[in-house]
């Protein structure tokens, strides 16, 4: 059954942009109405395709920010330096525009309640996007699986979904820590450095608690986080990673 479902061909679909939400100076969420959206699992991504008038096309992959339960499909995109597709999505796209996408894609970096917990989510920069989908999904289904999130950002201004995450943090079983790596307010009580083994030891579940770990961020962040957790005694088979950049995308 599962195998048959996977074999369904992923066709390009035309979504329409309902709203654009500025998350940080370089990041926007694109709220899409996708008429034939087949549904997705928390953590999956889509391919986006742009077509110029002369037929030239460019494709990139973006994580889905919305939960399966949300009415609309939301992509959250960071404008990269020289980003051919991300610059268009962040600077040019307007409500009412169409956007071609196909998906959902990826069956490994996903969480559903069957997989249990406890959960340890680690986000570097815009790596928060698929983890936000997991957090929203967990809240939407009323799951009691305890979750800790460690989110590393350059500054408070660059924290994506800040209000929503602060709202999540008051839910039972949700623990959210931030670390700011470049700038922080004077009274900042969170961490003030790049993640390291000491920070992970302080924040993470004990290896004996067998957390399921999801790490998403730039490659150096993921390498440090995953290696440190394995070093601390966590089972590599329970550490799932998704990396991005530097790709100039």
């Amino acid at each position, binding site marked *: 059954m599962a*195998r048959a479902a*996977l*074999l*369904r*061909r*992923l066709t390009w679909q*035309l979504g329409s942009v309902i709203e654009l939400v500025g998350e940080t100076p370089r990041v926007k969420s694109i709220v899409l109405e996708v008429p034939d959206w087949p549904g997705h699992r928390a953590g999956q991504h889509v*391919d986006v*395709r*742009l*077509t*110029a*008038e002369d*037929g*030239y*096309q*460019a*494709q*990139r*992959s973006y994580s889905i920010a919305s939960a399966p339960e949300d009415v609309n499909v939301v992509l959250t995109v960071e404008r990269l330096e020289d980003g*051919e597709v991300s610059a*268009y999505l962040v600077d*040019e796209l*307007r409500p009412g*525009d*169409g*956007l*071609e996408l196909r998906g959902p*894609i*990826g*069956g*490994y*970096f996903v969480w559903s309640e069957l997989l249990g917990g406890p959960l340890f989510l680690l986000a570097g920069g815009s790596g928060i996007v698929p983890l936000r989908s997991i957090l929203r999904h967990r809240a939407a289904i009323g799951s009691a699986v305890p979750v800790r999130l460690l989110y590393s950002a350059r500054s408070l201004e660059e924290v994506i979904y800040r209000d929503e995450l602060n709202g999540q943090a008051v839910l039972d079983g949700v623990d959210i820590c931030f670390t700011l790596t470049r700038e922080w307010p004077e009274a900042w009580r969170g961490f003030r450095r790049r993640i390291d083994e000491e920070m992970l030891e302080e924040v993470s579940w004990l290896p004996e608690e067998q957390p399921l770990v999801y790490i998403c961020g730039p*490659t150096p962040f993921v*390498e440090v986080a*995953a*290696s440190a*957790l*394995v070093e601390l005694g966590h089972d*590599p*088979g329970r*550490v*799932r*990673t998704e*990396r*991005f*950049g*530097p*790709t*100039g*995308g």
Partner: protein
Amino acid sequence: MAFISRGFKGRRRADADPSRVPPGQYVTDDFPVLSAGPTPHTPLEDWSFTILGAVGEPISWTWEEFASLPHETVTVDIHCVTKWSKLDTVWTGVSVDGLLEEVETTGEYVTAFSDGGYTTNLPLEDVTDGKAWIADGYDGQPLDPEHGGPARLLVPHLYFWKSAKWVRGLDLRVEDEPGFWETYGYHNYGDPWREQRYSGD
């Protein structure tokens, strides 16, 4: 009528030969990393490479034995299913043909297996006749663990997930069996020129 993205002009790279870039891909000078889990760090003294499965007698090489096999240096273009292509990458490795010479097989498929549990499946004919290597060098240096070191499979004519990182052996099979990404909805064969990214493409 084909859809046009309002206001999208695109930026074609003038320095990349379009005939070398498969559909839906863009050329990057970086070397991005994609893996599903932590990077394994197997000490070389514990490393071995094994051919097993539908063979008369499995055969293994220690790191020392592998390192002393004849190596080739090849310059190839690589294409990742996440859309980036990198042209003229230079690898050093042992031709899979040379390794397979040591065994008799009735298998027509191969599953490459890696440290960390990763697997990927290919038809045997896609790793023979000079089409695949076990690469332990990149750009004149030992292959970095992030990019699959100490050794990875290199099958440049297929999407790069088929070039299994941290490869530890080849399991020859009479019947094809989907590997890791292949069971998660990615294409069973993965030809970039036919844009076989996902099941059904």
